[in-house]
């Protein structure tokens, strides 16, 4: 879990209805909302099911394992947020979780040029210091 935090770790804006998600990240857990009526796993987190309209949504804990759906090495800032004004090269990616959703994230703890579509990855958490952590991913089997 000791993570290389060279990449900026901005504090996310925490809307009240997704505070449970962000509280869990600080404890090293990745939660996913799941509709208890149609069983759809929901992403990004919302307090209702966009598939069936149900309000009967519960949090489940993700395995933290997935594969790279697509990625880019962003070699020249700046990102949309000011924290990314001059970050150096970093990998922005969509990772497809074992539970289904493709989520936006970063691939870390590896040479950016080594990342491949289809690569197996696992979650790590980068602490923002403000009661939240960003779920990022590293090549599976890392230590």
């Amino acid at each position, binding site marked *: 879990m000791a993570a290389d935090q060279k990449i900026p770790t901005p504090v996310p804006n925490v809307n009240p209805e997704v505070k449970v998600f962000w509280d869990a990240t600080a404890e090293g857990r990745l939660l996913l909302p799941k509709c208890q009526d149609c069983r759809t796993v929901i992403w990004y987190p919302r307090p209702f099911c966009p598939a069936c309209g149900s309000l009967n949504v519960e949090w489940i804990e993700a395995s933290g394992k997935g594969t790279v759906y697509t990625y880019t090495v962003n*070699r020249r800032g700046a990102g949309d947020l000011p924290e990314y004004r001059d970050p150096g090269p970093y990998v922005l990616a969509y990772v497809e979780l074992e539970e289904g959703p493709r989520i936006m994230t970063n691939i870390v703890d590896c040479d950016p040029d080594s990342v491949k579509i289809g690569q197996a990855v696992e979650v790590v958490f980068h602490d923002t210091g403000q009661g939240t952590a960003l779920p990022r991913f590293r090549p599976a089997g890392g230590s």
Partner: protein
Amino acid sequence: MSIRGKAYIVGGYEHPDRVIPDKSVSQIHAEVAIGALKEVGLSLSDVDGYFYTGQLNMGGTATSDYLGLKNLTYLDTTMTGGSSPVFQIGHAAAAIAMGKCRIALVTLAARPRSERQQRAAPNPEASFEQVFGTNTIAMYALAAQRHMYEFGTTSEQLAWVKVAASQHAQYNEHALLRKPVTVEEVVNSRMLSDPLHLLDTCVVTDSGGAVVVTSPEVARDLGRTGCKILGHGEAPKHTNNGNVDLTFTGARWSGPRAFEEAGVSPADVDYASIYDSFTITVVETLEDLGFCEKGKGGAFVADGGLIARGGRLPVNTDGGGLCNNHPGMGGMMKVLEAVRQMQGTAHPGVQVPDCQVALVHGTGGSLGTRMGSATLILGQEDA
């Protein structure tokens, strides 16, 4: 109920400048509005429908005030990023067909080259995307990378989109970049966000543009019936509850809607303005509109496929967003070059002979992730 033949684009005006350090966006809106109306022999007081695309909060209302539009019976401030004007021309045609207005003014202006855009309150998805360092180029790069992985599309094929734009831009005296470039120059330009290079990206300009859409009666009175609106389709596309697919765009849905209403097919299209924020934008859009099979867009654009003289389909003959003009949101420039092609007023070096049917496609937002797509089909009076 259909808009087919119920409205015409009677004329338009593209701001001649590409760097505007000393005017407000409101002034640019005014200059393009007056320019477009003057071209067609109308004035601000004739306008009864106003369609605004720009950077201001409550911009449609504010700019109606600024322009002194006092006879408005219809106001639209649709914001779908760069595709907004293409959405709005469909809305204008529908409003005209319903009798809600007769003379619609559509304007776009922005100054991203000279001023940083202000950031609004965080959207609900921002905490799950922006914190990871998103930016516009990276979001399009994610789509390009997946398209290459699934279909074998190459950087050289993408580069041909830029090469064609640059071939066209050399004829456009207002284009920001007028020098033709080669495939080698594109793929050897600086890598910004893999696999997109500097020359895979559009220019950033300060500029604007406007068009006037009217009822058939007004178009006939003005003697400007050469650009009839045949069909229009629009569609948002988004992440689909965690099932995002970056290999296609909203054009997959907006295109068929527009073709069906127009009663034409891709084979009938003589000229196409295809939104070109990045080279990949054009490749995915051409596939989704049915100009080629899904996954074959790279081969379609390669080897001069989009060049006006001798290509498979003349695309973006003004030089497009890649070389001519892209003030952050370029949908208006796409409409304007199609109008020129229909009117026969494009540069002789790129004019399509006997242009009977033109297509305009606007793309706004992030390709494949969260975007607005709009397709507009124009025809000559007897089409």
